[in-house]
C-alpha cells in the first residue's frame, strides 16, 4: 500500500472520530456539561471544557480535511488523543468513581476499552506524522 494512501486512511479515520465525537457532545451539550461537572479533575473548568473540547475536535478535523494543513492536523490530533488518553489513565488510576463524559456510541465502552481505543488512535496519529513528515521532507529536498 502506498504511504500516501495510508496517511489518507488515517486522516479519514481521525476526521470520522473527531466529527462524530464533537457532534454527539454538541447535540447534547447539557448532558456533556453535567458529566464533565462530575469529573473530579475538571469540575472547576467544566463549562469551558464543554465548549472547548468539541470545538477543538472540529478545528482539528478541518485541519485534517485541508491538504496543506494536514501535517499540523496530525500533530494536533496526536496532542488531543494524548490528552484524552492521559485523562482516562488518570481517571482509572486516581479517581474514586468514573463518570462517563464520552459522546454517542463511545459511551457504551468501558473505561479500559476506551483507554485501548484511544491508544490505538494516538498511535495512528503518530504513524501519520511520521509518514507525512518523510513525504514533506522529500518534497522539500526535491525543490532544493
Amino acid at each position, binding site marked *: 500500500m502506498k504511504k500516501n494512501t495510508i496517511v*489518507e486512511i488515517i486522516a479519514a479515520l481521525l476526521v470520522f472520530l473527531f466529527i462524530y465525537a464533537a457532534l454527539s457532545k454538541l*447535540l447534547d451539550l447539557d*448532558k456533556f456539561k453535567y458529566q464533565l461537572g462530575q469529573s473530579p479533575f475538571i469540575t472547576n473548568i467544566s463549562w469551558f471544557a464543554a465548549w472547548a473540547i468539541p470545538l477543538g475536535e472540529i478545528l482539528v478535523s478541518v485541519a485534517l480535511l485541508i491538504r496543506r494543513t494536514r501535517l499540523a492536523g496530525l500533530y494536533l490530533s496526536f496532542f488531543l488523543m494524548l490528552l484524552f488518553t492521559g485523562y482516562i489513565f488518570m481517571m482509572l488510576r486516581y479517581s474514586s468513581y468514573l463518570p462517563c463524559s464520552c459522546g454517542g456510541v463511545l459511551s457504551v465502552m468501558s473505561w479500559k476499552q476506551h483507554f485501548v481505543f484511544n491508544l490505538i488512535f494516538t498511535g495512528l496519529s503518530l504513524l501519520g506524522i511520521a509518514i507525512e513528515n518523510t513525504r514533506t521532507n522529500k518534497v522539500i529536498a526535491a525543490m532544493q
Partner: protein
Amino acid sequence: MKRSVSLAAIAALFAIGAAFTTRYQVGMWNVDHPENGSPGIYTLTAAQVKSIYCPGVNNVECAYLVTNPSVIIKKP
C-alpha cells in the same frame, strides 16, 4: 491530491450522519411514574431523555424525561 481530500470529506459526512442517527436511536427505559399510563418499560429515543448518573454509583445510568424532569427513569 483530490482523492485524499474526498476520502476525509466522505468520512466527515458519514460522521455527521452517524452522530444524528445515534441521537434518534431508541432505547428501552424503565419509567417509574409516567405522565400518562402505568409504570413499566417504555421505548424512548435519546432525544427524549436526559441521561444522568445515579449519585454515588459507577456506570449505572439513570435519566429523566425531557418533558418532565421530575420523572426519573432507569435502564431495565
